[in-house]
């Protein structure tokens, strides 16, 4: 008899994808300004380190929240014992209001419809468990965050069918793409239970447009299916057009309290907007009481630490702070984004026009030796090993077209980003020089003496190699 379950021995955890393998290579040879200046620069981690100073100064001014005290009195015991899966009321209220603020107060959130989960990872899985049976499917626009393969499919047995988006229209969702995906699912005998979109998009970095949101609502209405809107990056919109939540569009179309209203669910987290991925704060918001009830019970498998709920309830309730933080963080993101775009442009590389997220969707199609995913992988290996940058290849995001890469910009210092841009420029120049010097071998600058030869690189497929998990 097989010792372990099918789930334990399959590859559905998705960790063999290049998305995670790049990280492993980074782990082995991480860049450090002083200790390892020729190491690999991590640009595959969608994380923001830009505004920690703001958090730290808030903490310094608010000792109560940190030290288990309220008005100087110890509440340690109360917190240590608090395991109610309904969550700390003060925290849910503060979180709901924070979410409203990010949406310019154009929607209201009832804290009772909020379910706390251990990160958005858990929120997405929980929704999949609640909305679909094993063997049923969700439609997802490509390219999409690689972690969804694990979060939505692994333990739930649910399938993902792609809604193919292409560069011809900036990867926007179209009616025909939606319909094609639906039919594709049917052909595979998969009953479609819903559509999941990330808004703003990961990896595109674009806020989903109003027309697209309207299209999605019409589509799910007609097909009588759910819509999950993962709005984890909602606070990272740094330039126009401003963020529009699907909840706002529902209200605009007077769909409050209709059947469609009951089939739209949000996922949120503080990992991106506040830069606190370690704290595991995720949430599901739904107007559907049955979903809220079921998801709440399921949250037992991944509650948010009461210690963390307490800290954040105080932080998010400080409206002066949150307002300033959201604004300032966006300013800094915009600046970084501009730096990356400029730096890439300088190397003759363009990006998809984007106004959100912690990354750019970079067009390296012109650097491919052929229009294929093999060529994309080849280019990716060069970038990881020769250029020394861990970026995420589009194929790991299920992109339909080869040559696109997601490059993160908010998880490093300005100097490091500068260096990364320099390395890319040098690489592009040397590649151009090389191709114009056919027959002559070309040596890259000694700056990259730490590069490994390709023969040492093995595309490992065993799931025994653990890695950080990340968006």
């Amino acid at each position, binding site marked *: *008899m097989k*010792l*372990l*379950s099918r*789930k*334990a021995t399959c590859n559905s*955890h998705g960790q063999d994808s290049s998305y995670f393998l790049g990280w492993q290579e980074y782990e082995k040879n991480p860049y450090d300004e002083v200790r390892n200046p020729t190491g690999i620069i991590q640009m595959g981690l969608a*994380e923001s*380190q830009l505004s*920690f100073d703001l*958090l*730290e100064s808030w903490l*310094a001014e608010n000792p109560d*929240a*940190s*030290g*288990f005290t309220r008005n100087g009195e*110890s509440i*340690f*015991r109360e*917190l*240590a*014992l608090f*395991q109610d899966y309904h969550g700390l009321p003060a925290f849910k209220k503060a979180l709901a209001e924070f979410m409203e603020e990010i949406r310019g107060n154009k929607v209201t959130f009832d804290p009772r419809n909020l379910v706390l989960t*251990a*990160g958005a*990872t858990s929120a997405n*899985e929980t929704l999949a*468990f*609640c*909305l*679909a049976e094993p063997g049923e499917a969700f439609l997802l626009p490509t390219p999409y965050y690689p972690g969804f393969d*694990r979060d939505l499919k692994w*333990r739930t047995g649910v399938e993902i069918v792609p809604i193919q988006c292409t560069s011809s229209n900036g990867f926007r969702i179209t009616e025909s793409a939606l319909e094609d995906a639906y039919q594709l699912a049917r052909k595979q005998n998969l009953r479609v239970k819903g559509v999941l979109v990330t808004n703003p998009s990961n990896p595109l970095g674009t806020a989903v447009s109003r027309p697209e949101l309207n299209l999605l609502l019409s589509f799910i209405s007609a097909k009588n299916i759910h819509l999950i809107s993962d709005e984890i990056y909602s606070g990272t919109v740094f330039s126009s057009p401003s963020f529009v939540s699907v909840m706002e569009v529902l209200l605009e179309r007077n769909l409050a309290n209709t059947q469609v209203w009951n*089939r739209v669910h949000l996922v949120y987290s503080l990992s991106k907007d506040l830069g*606190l*991925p*370690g*704290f*595991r*704060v995720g949430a599901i918001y739904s107007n*559907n009481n*049955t*979903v809220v009830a*079921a998801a709440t*019970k399921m949250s*037992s*498998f*991944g*509650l948010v*630490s*009461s*210690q*963390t709920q307490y*800290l954040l309830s105080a932080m998010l309730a400080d409206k002066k702070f949150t307002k300033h933080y959201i604004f300032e963080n966006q300013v800094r993101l915009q600046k970084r984004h501009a730096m990356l775009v400029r730096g890439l442009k300088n190397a003759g590389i363009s990006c998809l026009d984007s106004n959100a997220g912690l990354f750019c969707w970079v067009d390296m199609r012109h650097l491919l030796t052929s229009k294929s995913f093999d060529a994309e992988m080849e280019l990716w290996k060069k970038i990881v090993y020769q250029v020394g940058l861990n970026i995420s290849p589009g194929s790991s995001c299920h992109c339909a077209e080869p040559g696109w890469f997601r490059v993160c910009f908010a998880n490093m210092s300005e100097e490091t980003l500068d260096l990364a841009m320099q390395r890319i420029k040098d690489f592009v120049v040397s590649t151009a020089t090389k191709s114009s010097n056919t027959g002559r071998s070309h040596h890259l600058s000694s700056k990259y003496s730490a590069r490994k030869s390709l023969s040492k690189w093995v595309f490992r497929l065993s*799931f*025994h190699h*653990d890695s950080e*998990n*990340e968006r």
Partner: protein
Amino acid sequence: MEFSLKNEQQQLLSKMATNDGHGENSPYFDGWKAYDSDPYHPTRNPNGVIQMGLAENQLCFDLIEEWVLNNPEASICTAEGANKFMEVAIYQDYHGLPEFRNAVARFMEKVRGERVKFDPNRIVMSGGATGAHETLAFCLADPEDAFLVPTPYYPGFDRDLRWRTGIQLLPIVCHSSNDFKVTKESMEAAYQKAQEANIRVKGFLLNNPSNPLGTVLDRETLIDIVTFINDKNIHLICDEIYSATVFSQPEFISISEIIEHDVQCNRDLIHLVYSLSKDLGFPGFRVGILYSYNDAVVSCARKMSSFGLVSTQTQHLIASMLSDETFTDKIISTSSERLAARHGLFTRGLAQVGIGTLKSSAGLYFWMDLRRLLRESTFEAEMELWRIIIHEVKLNVSPGLSFHCSEPGWFRVCFANMDDESVRVALRRIHKFVLVQGKATEPTTPKSRCGSSKLQLSLSFRRLDERVMGSHMMSPHSPMASPLVRAT
């Protein structure tokens, strides 16, 4: 076509979302609802329901709070700890902070009297023990497969092991005739029954110390169990969540000791579940631990831990706290002493009116024998009695039926989640109830199984009050030393 709302929801949502797999419609939770709507408070609601259905450890918060106060750097948000804030807040590696794993491994070793070593690299985080159990079920079994579990058992297992995983729990029925011990015969019988029903058994779930019994498994039984699972090539999941709540003899023996010292077995079959919710009283912090001797399970469970990682803010706090070995030594021994005192207080108080309890040496509860108060020996009668206890005596205790006990009349009563005053009130209420029922007997010379107390106390309330109040003033370190306790 019109659908009723329920029908519609069932069409729209998964079966899982609308079935009863969460187990919350069980009577176990009904009592809580009664408590929630009428909770006891010494001044604001002195006639309210006293919560005795919650296995929580509140006896050592004074020590813990003192430690927290004296160690501000353990919080990353204080001035002393702030320099770690960013590093901790962005750390999301599912391996967990190394210092956290090291500290937890050390603590687990200490709890087992340093008789075994734990490898921090085998420590996997989970969303409480709740998450650990579910993760193990996902890793070890496919839908429709089964785990065997001795009865009576913690009701939450029905949800944790089965709800989203699709696996089954099959009982190994245990009886009061031998103190609910697991026997070779009962294990074999359960296994055979599964075979006959064409159900594939993948594992054996053990809770040691036992919830709800409060007993620790003896070495011989543990060896029998390991031998059994090894022979059948099935997994052993050992939930040792109450390992540091042992307050008297016999001592706790961990499965890790058995496989290390007592019997050869395939270690790929052995997995531990742990948590800080009971031993330290931190259920709110969601610190669940899965420890496996099987590399593939560690690897898989670690990936699954993404669904329930421990907040790094909490990991940091726990790492600091548990690496302070002076503190951990103190808390383990003090907790033990205070639990012993509480346990003794209740069991002696019950013995006074002839109510027996299963002899136990661990846990935050005891297993109370109310069989002779049943109208008849049925579960209906047990439920009737339970409703009376909740609504008239105003104590939320947990009926044996909710623990899948095979015999009616047993109740689990928690004692570590309240203050001394509540204890006094609870005992008074029980005494009153039993006397009014006319069911009081002469104080039992407790059966040898229920421990050989040399006490004989009168039934007068006054004497009882004195005794209880006396215990109030007694040193928690010497429950038997009060001059108010008269030995015969």
